[in-house]
Structures are given as structure tokens and as C-alpha cells.
């Protein structure tokens, strides 16, 4: 239910403006910002687990889902270890909630995002942008993620495998 001053028509207007800015992969519409990521979710049926329910041989992933969002990436953080320099980076991925609903997707902790030739493991999800303070008008989903090593996943063939 919309508030007194922000009616459904206004919300639809926000939606239109947001999809114009971000892009709408579901309809194939390019956006002004047009930052596209791919979301990978664990395929629970394909992932083999051991006696303890652990995916000891690695996880299987569902097909990636193309999503539009805005991204705020922190600077690279290089750490010197015994094995050489290690690269760390955190980033926030902000999704239009309505786009997720349109694509029937839920972004969860543990999912992976592919962006900027790298994979990002989601470690927190925040839904706290309420339009007009209305809890049923949650506008966005913000996923906080950190850069992960490709070798730790089972998506791409890497030299370590």
C-alpha cells in the first residue's frame, strides 16, 4: 500500500526512472549506468555432499543470472603474505528490488557475483531503503561482497585445478 503522498503511480514512475538508469536485463533494455553483474547461486541438487553435509568436492552452481545494479567498490588492498602479495577488495552491489522481483531472484548470503573479471562472495545483504518510510516499499537490495579467488569456486577452469 502506498503512502498518502507517494501513490502507486509515483512508485511506478520511480521504477521507470530506475530501470532507465540501471538498465533492465529482463527486457534487454540498456541503461544509462548499465552496470551488469551475474549472480550465481548454489545448485543444491547438483552439489554433492558428504556424511556431514559438506560439499567437500566443491559446489555446483546454477546458471548465472544477469542483473543490473550500481556498484561501489573500495580500493584494492594488497597484503604481503608468505606466498606473495594477496589482493583484497570489498564492494557493495545495489539492486533495484523490483528488478529482482521481475526476474524472480533472491540475493542471499553465500551467493557469488561476477563483475569486473572477478567473483565476489556475498557476505551481507541489506534491505533498508524504504520509500516514504513505508516498510512495504523497500526500494533496493544491497549486497556487500568481497573479492574471492577463482580457484575456490568451481565455475571456471583454473591452473590450480
Amino acid at each position, binding site marked *: 500500500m502506498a503512502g498518502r503522498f507517494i501513490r502507486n503511480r*509515483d512508485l511506478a514512475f520511480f521504477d521507470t526512472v530506475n530501470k532507465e538508469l540501471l538498465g533492465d536485463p529482463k527486457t534487454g533494455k540498456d541503461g544509462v549506468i548499465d552496470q551488469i553483474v551475474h549472480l550465481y547461486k548454489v545448485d543444491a541438487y547438483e552439489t554433492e555432499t558428504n556424511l556431514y553435509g559438506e560439499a567437500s568436492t566443491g559446489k555446483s552452481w546454477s546458471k548465472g543470472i544477469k542483473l543490473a545494479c550500481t556498484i561501489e567498490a573500495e580500493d584494492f588492498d594488497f597484503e604481503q603474505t608468505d606466498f606473495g602479495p594477496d589482493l583484497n577488495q570489498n564492494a557493495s552491489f545495489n539492486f533495484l528490488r523490483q528488478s529482482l522481483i521481475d526476474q524472480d531472484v533472491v540475493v542471499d548470503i553465500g551467493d557469488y557475483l561476477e563483475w569486473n573479471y572477478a567473483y565476489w562472495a556475498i557476505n551481507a545483504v541489506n534491505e533498508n*531503503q524504504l520509500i516514504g518510510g513505508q516498510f512495504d516499499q523497500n526500494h533496493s537490495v*544491497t549486497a556487500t561482497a568481497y573479492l574471492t579467488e577463482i580457484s575456490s569456486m568451481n565455475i571456471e577452469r583454473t591452473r590450480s585445478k
Partner: protein
Amino acid sequence: MAVTIWQGSSTFASGQTPYGFYDSDSSFQSDVDKFADWAGRRLGYPIVDIELQSGSFYACFEEAVSEYSAQVNQFNIRDNLLHLQGQSTGSSNDFTHKRIKPNLGNVVNISQQYGAEVGVGGFVDWRKGSIDVVSGSQDYDLNELYASVSHSGEAIEIKKIFHEAVPAVNKYYDPYATTGYGTANFVEGFGFGDYSPATSFVLMPVFEDLLRIQAIEFNEQIRKSQYSFSLINNKLKLFPRPTAAAKLWFEYIVVSDRDNSQSTSYSGSADVISDYSNVPYDNMQYKFINDVGKQWIRKFGLALSKELLGNIRSKFGTVPIPNSDVTMDGETLRSEATTEKEALVAELRETLEQTSRRVMMEADSEEGARLQEKLGKVPLSIYIG
């Protein structure tokens, strides 16, 4: 609730404009979709979304046509009102797209008021009344004796009092008879002085008659107690003192008849053009507007569309986007649209003023003078006969 916005094309159907003034005009039907397409592109489609619908463009286009019509007709009313006042406001008298012929109606109307004052025309009835004159009494209050009785106390203004001597010409007898006043006086004494004694005649100029009549009247007035009166505030004093009872006639008007600013020449002409508000200029027919006007309409329609888009985009100063917000360009669009609209209206008014009857007559006169000047420099051939 998803609201469909402009998709880049439209198909107009009658009834899709707010007022429907021009919906049945095939030229309008053809142009309105083209306008929507053009205006959408001019606003940035398909590079950016335009938060308008086809109906928005239709409304703007209809308003632009109406605004053009109103501006031109405002000018026409100003230019022609002098010649239109007093004409019927009936639907058969539609001046839209019509050439107005200048006439003297208003000038004549004004002059008729002067005529009414001196009894040679106008819309004010001159009435006739009378009082009874009593022997020996000189003073009579016409307000009391007549206005109160016949007009319930309404103010009357006396125009003429019929209290005069016998015309001087009666004492002059026959101006052609110049054989002597003795004979004439003699005939007059028998009561048939109006009949000409057929004696000899000498043709005299007319001014001779006038001078003679004037001499008789002066004589009556100065040397005798001539018939006269004074009339001040409708209080009548008769001279000389009446020696017999009689009926005194006079002509007068009821003052409210003259002062009635709504009086017309006849009762059937009551519903006439009075002022700017009821001159029968209607919306123009779109098909009759020339391409010059249509270009103005398109540009004004675009400004209206921009203003409408600006209104939509400025309902919220900022629109939320995921984890942030974005400032819309609504205020900029509105500001630009206002400037464009003002400029278009100013340009149109200026153009119209340059085509006013007065300005065109001045230009025509100036052109004639310049032409004369130019012709004056043409060498004249010398005729040798």
C-alpha cells in the same frame, strides 16, 4: 501499477484529446501523430525515456492549436471591435476566418446621441404633453403638474414649448405683393390676410423676406409684449400674462430614456456584441491554418510538452535509486519551456501588431509617399510640339 510511457509511436482516434475541438478535422488527425513522434524525438526519445503518453502529446497539440487561435482572434477582436459592436451575437454571425469590412456603425451610433438631443434622430422618444393654462396665471411647475402625474415623478426634460406668436410671415402677407402694406393690412382686417391680393409682383431675393420677417419679430419682441416664456428647472413662466384659459402643449423626453446606456435602435437588437467578451470568434478550423501558423503550433506544442514533462519530473526533486538518489531535470525543463512559450507568444503578437489595420494603412501611406518621391526622380520627357 505499471504506467505505460511513450513508446515512440501512436495512432490517434477521435476522442483522445481533452476537449475534442479538432478531433474530426482530418488534417488534425493526420498531424497530431506526427507531432507526437516529432516532439518525442525532440525531447530525447529513444535515447532517453520520455515519461509522457500519446494522450499527453495530443493534449499539448490541441492546446497549442487553441492558443494560436486565441492569440490571432484576440488580435482580430482588438482590430475589429469598433466595427463589430452592435452586431448580432447569434451563431450565424461567426467571424472566425472571416474578413471584416470596416463600417460606420459605431460612429453613427454616437452621432445619433447628438441627434437625439436636438430632435433629429436617435433612440430617445420625444413625447408630447400639455397642461391647462389658467387665465391670469403665469407660473406653472411642470414637474408637479405633469411629471408627477404622467410619469410617477420621473425626471422629464422639456424640449419644446408651443407658446409662440403667430408666425411673422402672417403679418407680412404675400412677399410677392409689394403694392403696399395698406392693402394688405386692410385684407388682414377682414380675416383673410393669408390670401394674396393679386396685384403686381416684383421678384425679390429671399434674404429680403428674411430681413423683413426678422424686423417684424424684433418689433413684436421689443416694442410689444410678445409671446415668450422662461423655463428654469421645469418651472415655466409665460409671457404675457394669459388672458384666457387654454391648453399649452410641449414636447419633452423622459430623462431615463436618454440616460439608458443599454438602449438600442429597436427591441430585437438586444443580444448584440457589446465588448471583447462576446464577439463571436471561435476556435479556428485546423485545416484552414497555413503552414506558418502550423509551425508556430508545433513549436508551442513542443514547449507545452516540455513543460508537462518538467512538471512530471519535478514532482519529486530527487528520485531514489538503489542506495542513493538522482536529481531530476524537471525544473530545468519547466524553466526552458516557460521561456520558449513567452518568446513564441511575444513573436506572434508582434507579427500580428504589424498587420493591424492602422499599421497597414500607415505602411500603405508611406509606400505611396516613397513611390511619389521615386517617380519624382524619373526624368520627364520634353514635349516639343
